[in-house]
């Protein structure tokens, strides 16, 4: 099968600051790629490039075999949870619906087929009970379930998730990663998952792309998340410990990865 995402010799710089050079990887159907690294290494920029919202400084990107902006309608995007206004006139199902036809002109009537599709997407994330509730009155975890439904309703060929677990409790983290995992297993939709903490998805990921300041590494988690690889990436002594099945990174210069230790709250 051909790659859903193909990135070749990608470079990104802002003014004089080089984020990465010569970044190449492919994402095959059904693959789960975690993008890790400290803040400011261009994790979100990578997603924006794949969505065609940001031009890379160098290199070539293909999404579904074409340039990113052409493939946008076949990409599901899950952002991090953010609060909606309590009084916002928008129901859960309206949020999901926007993922289907929100980019189209006019006000548009839904066909019965589209309506059924929205219902199915909501049911698939187990949110049918609160489908008609105002979005601003739902909990963060409930909202993130609906975000998944919103991303799935257009039947995407690729899922991009940008820190979708942030500010969710552990139970909801499991739910959300489980839903993404189910989709890639049943429909073969690859998932690119940006996170600062690998542990919630450690059992799911096929590959890890680690972005460090000025360099990067990609490979299976056991290859990338080692003291040797990260020491080389950061150019300073970094220890990767395995504690009770969890990965703990100690000694990165910016100490971003303290999060790996204390994120379990």
């Amino acid at each position, binding site marked *: 099968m051909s790659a859903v995402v193909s990135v070749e010799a990608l470079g990104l710089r802002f003014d004089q600051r080089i984020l990465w050079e010569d970044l190449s990887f492919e994402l095959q159907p059904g693959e789960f790629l975690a993008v890790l690294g400290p803040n400011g290494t261009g994790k979100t920029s990578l997603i924006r490039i794949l969505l065609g919202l940001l031009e890379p400084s160098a290199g070539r990107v293909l999404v579904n075999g074409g340039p990113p*902006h052409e493939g946008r309608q076949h990409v599901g995007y899950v952002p991090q949870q953010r609060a909606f206004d309590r009084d916002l006139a928008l129901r859960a199902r309206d949020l999901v619906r926007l993922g289907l036809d*929100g*980019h189209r002109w006019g*006000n548009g009537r839904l066909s019965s087929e589209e309506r059924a599709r929205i219902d199915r997407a909501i049911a698939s994330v187990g949110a049918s009970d609160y489908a008609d509730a105002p*979005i601003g009155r739902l909990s963060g975890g409930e909202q993130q379930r609906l975000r998944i439904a919103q991303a799935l309703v257009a039947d995407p060929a690729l899922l991009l998730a940008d820190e979708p677990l942030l500010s969710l409790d552990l139970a909801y983290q499991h739910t959300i990663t489980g839903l993404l995992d189910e989709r890639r297993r049943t429909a073969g939709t690859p998932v690119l998952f940006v996170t600062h903490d690998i542990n919630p998805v450690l059992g799911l990921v096929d590959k890890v792309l680690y972005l460090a300041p000025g360099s990067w590494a990609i490979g299976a988690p056991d290859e990338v998340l080692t003291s040797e690889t990260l020491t080389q990436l950061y150019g300073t002594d970094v220890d990767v410990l395995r504690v009770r099945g969890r990965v703990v990174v100690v000694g990165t210069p910016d100490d971003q990865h303290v999060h790996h230790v204390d994120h379990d709250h």
Partner: protein
Amino acid sequence: MFTDLLAQHFVHTALLAGAVVAVVSGAIGIFVVTRGASFAVHAISELGFTGAAGALVIGIDPVIGMIGGSLVVGLVLGVLSLRGRERDSAIGAVLAFGLGVGVLLLSLYHGYATEATNLLFGSIVGVSDRQLLELTIVALIVTAGLAAIYRPLLFSSVDPEVAAARGVPLRAMSIAIFLLLALTTAEAIQVVGVLLVLTLVITPAAAAQRLTARPGLALVLSIAIALAATEGGILLSLAQPWPTSFFISAISFAVYVAARVVKRT
């Protein structure tokens, strides 16, 4: 006395003009409230006043100056697409200076002071047939614009991050809504005056949001409330010779308070 007045042509014109303005104000208000741009309405309206005062000084139709002033501010706000606190302080700074210029222009104007009072507090009962025609044409432009971009506008207002990922041009939406808002504001000024524009553009939409979470229904309710306030206000001011703007703002506010009290359906 009251029934005699109802037979008068100027009363019919006023009621029609009020209806036209109420429909566009109520409709656009939903998007303004959703985007948290209430303060921008105030700025656009006060700069509309500056434009009108400038027009009076150079001896042209103040309505032209008002639309010009509103459009300039609307365009600037739309292009800047500022968010949050930065937008608040930028608007505050521009608004204050614009109003200062308006005061200077009024002092240079040696015509009838009622012209200025009408701008500030509205003069619905003085609307001519020609003005009614102009109001209707502008209202049709605003309505057509809103209908054409309804879905992407809603998407970019409630969920900008995902809207961008799905290909909705955020900046174009921002410019479009502020230009349509500028036209609407210039309309509303002619009914309730510069200082009371918010009573038609914000209050009905805020009340409607409290009553329903359905986006389409909220839009319809907002229009209905704006209509009830405007028409009710005009009729009451015929029975009791207090300013029309007072009655309009009183009805609109009463509905808002009631909506905050009753439970949302």
